[in-house]
């Protein structure tokens, strides 16, 4: 039997949820297989059962501190479906405005605090410099101040609509709890104008620091960081990216549309696979099938998040973002984009879209309408709500009794949708970067980069086995024989 050496990268720096990457080496010191593992949160369904469904937007926004607004709105949309109620147009626009502000603050934080250290400071730089402080040392204090200012703008806008920024309380079945005033609209418009300029600066920084550095472009396009799964994202009527509402569109690894479906049809298209070594299940396309942790047209794994969304769309609905979209695909060699690290670039294209869309909505005369709620009149039953969270597609599914009490709640979060692809990316990077048993700090970080591109956050994605206690994680060889137990 081959001898295996285990290398553990723990904790994954700059990432929520205490993930762990395990790399298995063979006799020659090359990588046999690398896995990504995560802890499990327990008892979510049980916690929700018997509660009034209206509490779900508040409860689910507390599951995770990183994207409470995404959970809040996915949950609110699920409640619209549970009560069979259509929110008024102004409420939809206001929700979308709120949500674009959320995307802005999340994408700004990810790019400057989590992605930029690898590129601006350098993937092989000393660990103590590979953080936002190192980034600011390179790009200047003024840019640092702009980052803080614009992130704060996005928070303020969310607070105006949501009641408070981090745990919003605005979402109700059929609409929102309150409209905004003309004075608030003016403030939002002025911040949105500034955010558009800031997005332009961010794209320029990416252009100057990353795209003008041939080594980085080569790294982005290298096979080590390449993947070709299906892609999923929400689109509007023109097949342009939308974060808040629309149809789910999936394109295949050749870039052709595979399927388009509404939120309510989600369960017709996705199933979940269980692996013995992972607490988190792997969602995959039912009509393609589970073929293991592999990419390609035969395997039902999907890319979600920025590059998944952009791959699954035909373009962006706003002018500057669409220009950035075209430029990105021209450098990547056309669609679909296969470069895992291009998620960072796609995130900046989305940053521009979110800023432009925010501006558009803030200038819409209907946005200050007081018609922000349609009172539900139907008996509540069951419903699914989907939004595009910063990290990808987020799905909430509730079943209630006739009084609207939760009978069943299931969430499939963005990092779960992308879990299969993430695992392949980590495995490929490990195989490309570790040779002959040599693993230095730079190689470790570069394996993490494969993973960090997804901006994953597992705090909320691990409740898929409610009530079950953690088991020992075991590793098997190709014949199914257990090689070792992994410490947790």
């Amino acid at each position, binding site marked *: 039997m081959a001898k295996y050496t285990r290398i553990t990268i723990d904790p994954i720096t700059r990432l929520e949820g205490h993930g762990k990457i395990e790399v298995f080496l063979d006799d020659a010191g090359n990588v046999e297989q690398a896995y990504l593992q995560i802890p499990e*949160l327990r008892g979510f369904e049980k916690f929700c059962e018997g509660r009034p469904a209206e509490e779900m937007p508040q409860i689910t926004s507390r599951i995770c501190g990183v994207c409470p607004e995404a959970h809040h709105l996915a949950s609110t949309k699920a409640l619209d479906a549970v009560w069979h109620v259509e929110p008024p147009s102004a409420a939809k626009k206001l929700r979308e405005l709120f949500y674009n502000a959320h995307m802005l603050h999340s994408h700004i934080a990810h790019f400057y*605090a989590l992605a930029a250290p690898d590129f601006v400071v350098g993937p092989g730089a000393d660990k103590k410099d590979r*953080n936002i402080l190192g980034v600011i040392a390179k790009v200047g204090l003024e840019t640092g101040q702009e980052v803080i200012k614009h992130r704060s703008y996005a928070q303020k806008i969310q607070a105006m609509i949501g009641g408070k920024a*981090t745990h919003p309380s605005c979402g109700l079945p059929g609409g929102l709890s309150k409209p905004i005033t003309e004075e608030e609209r003016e403030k939002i418009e002025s911040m949105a104008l500034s955010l558009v300029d800031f997005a332009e600066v961010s794209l320029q920084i990416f252009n100057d620091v990353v795209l003008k550095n041939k080594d980085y472009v080569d790294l982005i396009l290298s096979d080590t960081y390449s993947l070709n799964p299906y892609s999923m994202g929400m689109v509007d009527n023109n097949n342009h990216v939308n974060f808040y509402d629309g149809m789910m569109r999936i394109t295949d690894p050749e870039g052709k549309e595979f399927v388009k479906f509404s939120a309510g049809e989600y369960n017709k298209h996705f199933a979940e696979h269980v692996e013995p070594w992972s607490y988190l299940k792997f969602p995959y396309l039912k009509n393609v099938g589970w073929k293991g942790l592999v990419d390609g047209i035969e395997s039902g794994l999907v890319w979600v998040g920025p590059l998944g969304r952009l791959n699954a769309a035909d373009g962006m609905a706003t002018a500057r973002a669409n220009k950035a979209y075209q430029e990105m695909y021209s450098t990547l060699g056309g669609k679909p984009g296969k470069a895992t690290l291009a998620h960072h670039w796609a995130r900046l294209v989305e940053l521009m879209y979110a800023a432009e869309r925010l501006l558009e909505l803030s200038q819409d005369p209907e946005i200050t309408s007081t018609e922000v709620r349609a009172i539900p009149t139907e008996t509540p039953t069951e419903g699914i709500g989907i939004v595009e969270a910063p990290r990808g597609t987020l799905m909430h599914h509730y079943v209630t009794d006739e009084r609207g009490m939760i009978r069943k709640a299931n969430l499939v979060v963005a990092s779960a949708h992308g879990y299969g692809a993430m695992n392949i990316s980590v495995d490929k990077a490990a195989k490309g970067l570790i040779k002959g048993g040599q693993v230095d700090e730079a190689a470790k970080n570069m394996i993490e980069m494969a993973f960090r591109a997804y901006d994953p956050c597992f*705090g909320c994605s691990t409740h898929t086995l409610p009530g079950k206690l953690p088991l020992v994680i075991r590793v098997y060889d190709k014949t199914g024989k257990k090689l070792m137990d992994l410490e947790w």
Partner: protein
Amino acid sequence: MKKSIVVGLGNPILSDDGVGNKIAEILKIQVSSEVEVVEATLAGFNLLELLAGYDTAILVDAIQTKGGKVGDIYKLNKDDLAFSQRLASVHDINLYTAWQLGEQLGIKLPDKLVIFAIEVEDVLTFSENLTPKVEAVVPKVCEMVLNELT
């Protein structure tokens, strides 16, 4: 008058992770009106904004250390932050980095920062209740925070 803020960090529906929130809830009715008491989920950028402008800041958070005894209370300063569950939350920047960033950018940060970290048992189960040993030290931590404010 010096301005003070107490921040209870944590997730109120994830068992002991909510100990900071629970303490903030109690302190809200115990402190004088000059002291701001808030709950927060994330450290990093958000905390930087939250603490800016105050003279004194007291943070209360859950912690899990290797071999730690559940219910132990640690009094820390910003230089020994790295291990707290929430303060080391790394999706965002951690508090230590946030603090340095704030100083670098000229943001007015508190002159006094005290962190109370409580060794906890369970931060992975959805529940609004603390485990008994953690629950038992809540009054003691409240007292320690109040002493720090006087």
